[in-house]
C-alpha cells in the first residue's frame, strides 16, 4: 500500500520516515504486508479488542508489567533523588503526517494545554505534587527535562503507563492542535461552533482524545483513524510508525483495521462465534458455541487469560447523597457481609470450569510488597456470618423474611449500574442471587458506557462494577491509574477525594482514616529508599484491600480467544488486561495474514 504511494512520489521512502534508531520488535516470523483486520466496538470511537495496539508512549512495560523499558524515547535518565527526569526522544521521530515530534510538542502541551487556566481552571492533575507542578525545559530539539520540586519517583511509572504516556506529551501534536486553540487561532471559537460546540475549549477537549484519535489528527501509534461514522471506524497504517521487525521491515504488517459498530453485546458475541472478526474474546458463558463452530467459521481457539485480579468487582458509593445509603455503604460490616455472601466457588465452576482464582480484589501477587493474606480477605462463602454482620449493621429482615429493611425501616434497594465489560453478564446474576439470599436486594441495570460514567462521576449512583486489573509493580505505585482511584472508573468516593485534592475548597471532608490514607500516599511518592517504598506501599494497599472499597469475585480467569486461521504472530498464551496495557502485550502490529489479498 505504501510502496505505491512512495512510487507516486506522495510519500518519502521508508528510511526517511523512520527515526534514526527505530524500535526493534523481535517477531516470531517475518510477516507479509497487506490485508485488513476486522474488529468491532460498541460505539463509534469506543474500545475494541485490537485497540491496545494503538498505544505508543515515551516508555513501555514488558509484557508482565514488571519492568519499564524505553519506547519512543530511547532513554530516560532520573536523578538519584528522583526529582529530575531527562527524556531523550528518538531522533527523527515523526507524527503520522510526517512532521517531526520534538521537545517543543511536549513543552507546548504542558504550557498551553495543561497549564491553560481556561481548560484547567484548577490546574491539571497530571504531575501535581502537593500543591506544586514540575518545570518543563527543553535541552535540545530531541531532549526535554521535567524537574519536580521534591522527589517524585512515580514519574517513570507514569510515562510508561497507558494513561499518561499517551494523554500527555506524545498525544498532542502542537502543530495541529494549535488551530483549535484560542491563543493561536482567533477564530477557534467560530470553528468550534461550526462543529456544534459552544466554545473553543469544548471542541479542543474533545479533540484531545488520544487512543482513538480524531480522523485528521496526527498520531504516533501504528494505525490512525481515517474514517469515522456511527456505523464503522477505519484505521489505516501510520507510514511514520517508529517500529521495525528484526530484519528492519517497518511495522505494522497489516494495512487496515475495520471496526464495525455493533451496539448489541449478544450480536458482538455472535459475530465472534461466526468468525466475523479477526481476533476476539470468547464469551465464557457461551463457550460451547465457540468450540462447536470454530471449524465452520475458520478460526482456532487460543487459551489466554485475563489479567484481572477480579473479573468483576463492586464498589459502593461511599459518598452517597442520601443519608441512609451513605450510612449503610460506609459501614465496613455491610461490605464485608456482601463479600462473604458471594459463592465464588459456584461462579468459578459454572462460568470458568474452576480455572479462575477465588481471590479478593487486590494487587498482583508478584508485587514486591504483596501481603498474601489480602487474597484471602473475606472471600469465604459464609452466609451465616454475612447475615450476622448485616444484622449488626442495622439491616433487619422484613416480616416475611423476603428482603432487608434499611435503618430507616424502608425496603433497602441498591441499583448497580454497569456496562458490559470483559465479564459475562451472567456473573452479575450469580452475585445478585447470592445477595438476595442474605436479603440485600439489588437491581442490575445495564447502561451505556458514557452514561454510566457521567452518572457515577456526578455521584448519582448506588453502586457500580468493573473488572479489577492485575496490578503489577509499575502500576501499583500509581493507585490513581488503577480502579482504586476514588474518582475514576468506580467513583466510590469522588467527594472525599475532591476535598483532599482541593484542600477543603470543595467536596466533602473524608473521615480521618481516609485523610490518613491520602497523606500516606503522598509520603509514598516521595519515598527515596526501597525500604520506605515497600513499607508505605504495603500500608497503602493494605488499607484499600481491607476497607473492601472494591468487593471482588473471581479473578485471573481463562479467556479463550477466537483467532482466524491464517493470522500469524499471534501469541499462544497472553495474560491480557489494563495492567499489561492490553494489546501492547499481544503486539497487534506484528500480526500478518498468510494470504493478505484474501483479507482485503
Amino acid at each position, binding site marked *: 500500500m505504501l510502496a505505491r504511494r512512495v512510487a507516486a512520489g506522495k510519500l518519502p521512502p521508508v528510511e526517511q520516515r523512520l527515526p534514526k534508531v527505530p524500535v526493534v520488535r523481535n517477531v516470531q516470523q517475518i510477516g507479509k504486508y497487506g490485508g485488513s483486520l476486522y474488529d468491532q466496538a460498541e460505539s463509534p470511537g469506543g474500545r475494541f479488542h485490537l485497540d491496545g495496539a494503538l498505544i505508543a508512549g515515551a516508555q513501555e512495560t514488558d509484557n508482565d508489567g514488571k519492568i519499564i523499558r524505553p519506547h519512543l524515547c530511547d532513554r530516560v535518565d532520573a536523578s538519584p533523588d528522583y526529582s529530575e527526569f531527562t527524556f531523550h526522544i528518538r531522533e527523527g521521530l515523526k507524527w503520522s503526517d510526517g512532521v517531526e515530534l520534538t521537545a517543543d510538542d511536549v513543552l507546548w502541551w504542558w504550557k498551553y494545554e495543561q497549564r491553560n487556566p481556561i481548560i484547567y481552571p484548577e490546574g491539571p492533575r497530571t504531575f501535581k505534587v502537593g500543591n506544586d507542578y514540575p518545570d518543563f525545559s527543553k535541552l535540545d530539539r530531541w531532549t526535554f527535562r521535567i524537574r519536580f520540586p521534591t522527589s517524585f519517583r512515580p514519574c517513570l511509572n507514569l510515562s510508561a503507563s497507558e494513561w499518561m504516556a499517551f494523554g500527555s506529551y506524545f498525544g498532542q501534536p502542537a502543530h495541529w492542535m494549535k488551530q483549535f486553540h484560542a491563543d493561536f487561532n482567533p477564530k477557534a471559537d467560530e470553528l468550534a461552533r461550526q462543529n456544534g460546540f459552544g466554545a473553543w475549549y469544548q471542541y479542543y477537549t474533545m479533540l484531545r482524545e488520544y487512543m482513538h484519535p480524531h480522523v485528521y489528527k496526527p498520531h504516533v501509534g501504528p494505525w490512525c483513524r481515517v474514517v469515522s461514522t456511527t456505523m464503522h471506524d477505519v484505521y489505516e497504517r501510520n507510514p511514520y510508525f517508529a517500529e521495525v521487525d528484526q530484519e528492519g521491515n517497518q511495522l505494522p504488517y497489516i494495512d487496515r483495521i475495520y471496526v464495525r459498530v455493533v451496539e448489541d453485546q*449478544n450480536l458482538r458475541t*455472535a459475530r465472534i462465534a461466526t468468525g466475523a472478526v479477526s481476533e476476539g474474546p470468547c464469551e465464557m458463558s457461551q463457550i460451547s458455541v465457540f468450540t462447536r463452530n470454530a471449524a465452520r467459521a475458520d478460526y482456532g481457539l487460543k487459551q489466554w487469560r485475563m489479567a484481572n485480579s477480579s473479573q468483576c468487582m463492586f464498589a459502593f458509593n461511599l459518598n452517597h447523597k442520601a443519608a441512609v445509603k451513605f450510612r449503610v455503604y460506609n459501614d465496613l460490616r455491610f461490605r464485608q457481609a456482601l463479600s462473604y455472601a458471594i459463592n465464588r466457588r459456584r461462579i468459578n465452576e459454572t462460568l470458568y*470450569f474452576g480455572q479462575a482464582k477465588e481471590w479478593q480484589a487486590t494487587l498482583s501477587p508478584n508485587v514486591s510488597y504483596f501481603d498474601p493474606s489480602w487474597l484471602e480477605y473475606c472471600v469465604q462463602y459464609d452466609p451465616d456470618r454475612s447475615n450476622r454482620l448485616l444484622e449488626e449493621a442495622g439491616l433487619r429482615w422484613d416480616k416475611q423474611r423476603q428482603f432487608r429493611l434499611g435503618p430507616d425501616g424502608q425496603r433497602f434497594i441498591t441499583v448497580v449500574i454497569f456496562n458490559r465489560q470483559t465479564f459475562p453478564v451472567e456473573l452479575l446474576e450469580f452475585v445478585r442471587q447470592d445477595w*438476595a439470599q442474605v436479603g440485600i436486594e439489588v437491581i442490575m441495570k445495564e447502561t451505556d458506557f458514557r452514561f454510566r460514567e457521567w452518572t457515577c462521576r456526578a455521584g448519582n449512583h448506588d453502586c457500580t462494577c468493573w473488572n479489577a486489573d492485575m496490578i503489577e509493580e509499575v502500576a501499583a505505585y500509581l493507585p490513581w491509574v488503577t480502579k482504586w482511584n476514588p474518582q475514576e472508573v468506580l467513583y466510590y468516593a469522588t467527594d472525599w477525594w475532591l476535598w483532599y485534592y482541593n484542600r477543603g475548597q470543595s467536596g466533602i471532608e473524608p473521615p480521618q482514616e481516609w485523610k490518613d490514607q491520602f497523606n500516606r500516599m503522598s509520603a509514598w511518592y516521595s519515598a527515596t529508599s526501597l525500604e520506605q517504598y515497600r513499607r508505605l506501599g504495603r500500608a497503602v494497599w493494605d488499607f484499600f484491600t481491607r476497607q473492601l472499597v472494591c468487593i471482588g469475585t473471581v479473578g485471573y480467569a481463562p479467556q479463550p480467544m477466537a483467532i482466524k486461521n491464517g493470522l500469524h504472530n499471534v501469541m499462544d498464551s497472553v495474560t491480557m488486561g489494563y495492567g499489561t496495557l492490553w494489546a501492547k502485550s499481544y503486539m497487534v502490529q506484528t500480526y500478518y495474514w498468510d494470504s493478505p489479498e484474501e483479507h482485503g
Partner: protein
Amino acid sequence: MIDTVTSRHSGSQWQLMWAKFRHHKLALASLGVLGVFYSIALLAPFLAPYDSWRASRFAFAPPNRIHMFHQGHLMRPFVYGIKMTSDARTFDRSITPDTSEVWPVRFFVRGDPYVWLWMVHSNLHLFGVDSGGQINLLGTDILGRDCLSRDIVSTQISVTVGMVGVFITFVLGCLIGGASGYYGGVVDNAVQRFMEFVTCLPTIPMWMALGAAIPAQWSNLKVYFTITVILALRSWTGLSRQVRSKLLQLREEDYVIAAKVAGASDWRIILTHLLPGFASYLIVSLTLEIPRMILGETTLSFFGLGLRPPTVSWGVLLQDAQNLAAISVYPWLMFPAILVVVCVLAFNFLGDGLRDAADPYKE
C-alpha cells in the same frame, strides 16, 4: 344468497353469540388453551416443581426424560440422576443421565416454600422427586435453575400484563371514543386528529422512549404498572375508533333519542343505553388487543427497558435466551418463545371467533 331472518329462537344476544361461537372450532380450542394458560398463572407456584430462583449445581442441564423402564423392568415413572463431566482444557461440558440413580416422580410432594396469592403459605408442589434428585423437564439455565418452573412462574406476569393493560385501554378507549362519538362536532374532530397523531408515532420507538424513562430504582410492581400504562397509551386508539363509529350509528336510534327526550344525562345515556348495545364489539377488540400487549411487554423486556429480574416474564426469560448458545446449543431456553407464540395465536383466534360470533351479518 339467503336473506337473513330474525331467528325463531328466542334468546339473548349472548346466547346467540355463544351458539355461533361454538361452531368456530379453532376459537373454541383457543379458549381452552387460554384457560390452561390462566390456570397455570393462577396455580403457578403449586405447578412449578421448584422455586424459580432455586439454583442447582448443573448449569445448562438438558431436559431430563421420564422413563418407565429401568434395566428392562417396568417401574412407576422415574427420572435418572444427572452426571456432569467437564474438561477445563477444551471447555467441554457434558451433562448426561446417570443410569445408576433412579428417582421416582412423586405427586403432591413437599418442596420449596412459597406464598400463594399473597396469603397462603405452603410448600406443596404438584410433582417432584425426593430431595437429592432433580427433575428438570425443560432443562436448566446457566445458574442451574429449573426452566420449567421459571416458564410457569413467568406466565403469571406475562398473561396478566395484557389483562391490566387492556383494562386501561378499555377505560381510555371508552371515555375518549365515547366522548368523540357522542358529542360529535368539534370534540369529535379534535379527538380524531389526536388519534391520527398517536398513530403517527412508531410503536416500538415510542415504547422504548417511554420505557427508557422508567427510573432504575423503582420497585418491580411500579415498573409493572408503568409498563402496562405505556402499552395502553398506544392501543386505546383502535378501541375508541370503534366505540366512536358505533356510537355515531347508535345515537340516531330511536331508543337513545327517547332517552334523551326523557331527560337522561349524557353519561347515563352512554353507560346504560349505548354501551350495552355494542358490548360484544368491545369484547372482540379487547380480546385482539391483549396479544399485542403481551408482545409489547415481551419486546420491551427483551430490550431491557421493561421488567427486570427478579421479576420473571417471558420477555425477561427471552432476554437470557437472546444469544447463539440458546439457539444452537441450549434450545430449551427458547421455550418461552413457544409460549408467547401459542398464547398470542390463541388470543387472535379467539378474537376472530368472537368477531364472527358477534357479527349478526356473518353466516
